[in-house]
């Protein structure tokens, strides 16, 4: 228990050591990524054509007669659109050069996702609210170590709740029809179902569960009253509360225990629906009859606030873009070097070397280049 308390294992994601570890990881990631990024930046701005031996040692190269230079440039420019260097000694062409920043985007997106989830951990919370048809609520219960009631900042009324099933008994749809009320005015009405939450004022309200609670139909001095467990009913100084429900008491059917005040003293008594003698009692001079016990549906709604979601979504998007750039953009460089008697054409792939090779072979064929010997 001590260990659990010390490390706050009951709530790892809010524990200082966990957040500390994530922050440490994030700093590490940032530093690594930035240093690599700067190094690459320098690499890119260092644009000079390698010497002849280096070019001859590249896997892809050929030589051309001098007078073919203009032809070569126009053909090459179709595939390698960007010129990153042009000088006396030659030209450097490039394609897909932003490929090298894909890695940067991927790592930054991880960082952004971490920041977003941290924001959610610190400023977000989760709770729930349970409503039966007709109920109006302004508060929900916070989940966590101690249950706490938190105001929505508006009110919810459950207009209707329906569960439907497939013929094989599997659930088909849960739908809660909600009214959103502010300052005693109905602002709008919405249906929420699984996979279709309501987002209002930063709160997300999800359909999450449902169930039934008993509702007790009493007739108290000829007046019909519907009560649920712990609902207090008061009339002319008489107070009663249904406190306990049993589905079956021995084999006498369902019953409910009711607490009431007799001369200021709390007392309890049982009502059994199916036993005529036990469904009617005289309490404090009032005739109380348990007419029926109904199963009433309730809907369980999950309530969350997570101000970090937008940041996390941004991170997701950047990561997908980064992954695409890093893994699917064909990138490479092509060099033209003016040598004494010939032109050397050489290329190297940054990513997808084999695709660069295919393009290089095409260029070579259309120029009738020859292999240097």
């Amino acid at each position: 228990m001590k260990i659990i308390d010390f490390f706050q294992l009951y709530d790892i994601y809010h524990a200082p050591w966990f957040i500390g570890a994530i922050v440490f990881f994030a700093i590490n990631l940032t530093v690594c990524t930035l240093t690599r990024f700067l190094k690459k930046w320098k690499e890119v701005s260092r644009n000079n054509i390698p010497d002849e031996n280096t070019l001859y040692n590249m896997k892809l190269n050929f030589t051309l007669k001098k007078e073919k230079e203009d032809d070569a440039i126009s053909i090459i420019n179709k595939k390698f659109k960007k010129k990153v260097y042009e000088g006396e000694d030659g030209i450097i062409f490039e394609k897909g050069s932003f490929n090298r920043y894909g890695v940067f985007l991927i790592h930054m997106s991880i960082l952004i996702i971490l920041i977003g989830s941290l924001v959610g951990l610190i400023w977000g919370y989760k709770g729930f609210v349970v409503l039966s048809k007709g109920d109006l609520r302004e508060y929900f219960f916070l989940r966590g170590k101690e249950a706490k009631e938190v105001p929505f900042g508006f009110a919810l009324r459950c207009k209707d709740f329906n569960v439907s099933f497939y013929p094989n008994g599997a659930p088909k749809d849960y739908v809660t029809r909600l009214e959103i009320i502010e300052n005693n005015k109905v602002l709008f009405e919405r249906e929420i179902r699984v996979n279709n939450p309501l987002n209002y004022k930063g709160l997300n309200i999800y359909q999450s569960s449902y169930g039934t609670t008993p509702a007790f139909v009493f007739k108290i001095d000829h007046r019909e009253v519907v009560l649920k467990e712990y609902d207090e009913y008061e009339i002319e100084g008489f107070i009663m509360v249904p406190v306990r429900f049993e589905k079956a008491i021995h084999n006498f059917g369902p019953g409910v225990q009711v607490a009431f005040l007799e001369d200021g003293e709390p007392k309890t008594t049982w009502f059994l629906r199916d036993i005529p003698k036990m469904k009617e009692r005289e309490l404090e001079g009032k005739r109380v009859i348990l007419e029926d016990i109904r199963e009433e549906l309730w809907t369980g709604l999950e309530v969350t606030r997570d101000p970090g979601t937008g940041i996390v979504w941004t991170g997701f998007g950047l990561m997908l873009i980064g992954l695409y750039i890093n893994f699917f953009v064909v990138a490479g460089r092509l060099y033209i070097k003016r040598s004494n008697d010939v032109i050397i054409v050489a290329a190297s792939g940054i990513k997808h070397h084999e695709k660069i090779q295919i393009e290089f072979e095409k260029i070579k064929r259309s120029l009738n280049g020859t292999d240097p010997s």
Partner: protein
Amino acid sequence: MELIHHKILGITTIVYLFIFFAHIVYFVVKKEIFLRSAWVLIYFNFFLHTTGILFRWFESYTLKMGHAPFSNLYESLIFFSWCICFMVILMKKRFMYPLISMFSILGALFFMAYASISPGVDKSIQPLIPALQSNWLHIHVITCFISYAAFLISFISGMLYFMGFRWAVLPDKETLEEINYKSIMVGFPMLSAGILTGAVWAHYAWGSYWSWDPKETWSLITWIIYALFLHARFVRGWRGKKIAFISIMGFLSVLFTYFGVNFILSGLHSYAT
């Protein structure tokens, strides 16, 4: 109830078996014609397999529970096999060696057979429960299973790397590494997309984009293993056995994410794929 798509997929399974045998015969008698017929069969079976899946889709509508066939273990196994066949065709042009296609098709055959024979796999069309009624289901399942299929190919080339003996049909080690890396280049972005779309879906269905349910946790572990592969190769410059080993571990983690989590650990995911 026996439906048309069960027949089509039954034939598909048998054709996978033929493709496997055609490879074996090719290795024994060394005649190109057998390899070529294996490939004809692969293309034909890809068509047949697709038809089978489309029929299941169509028949789910005739049974008034219409939905894309991505929603339970049976449907996911059938789709996984389809993805394997798809990857084999996709990688044919430059990276497909008969040993790789043989073992991949063997994998597809295994998952098809498992889907149709295992008593633990319910073959009937079931209606979609509310949590699965989402468009994110499709993109999530498609990206995940394409990545799994790519990782199967990476696993096969990783295993072949450890084959000690020299064998005429065994691609050389450099090629095996290349195939391994290329398949991870497809698998890693797809797995990432699968995890991210799963998170977005979870946000809409459960109210939280990440809840450390066992399937989520294991997919994260798998993702980290393949990230380790990429870093070991590109940052540390690792090659050879160490890299092959990581790709084997990665696929074992995929298998555990897919099956182990369903059978051993229970969580939000276990009703489905």
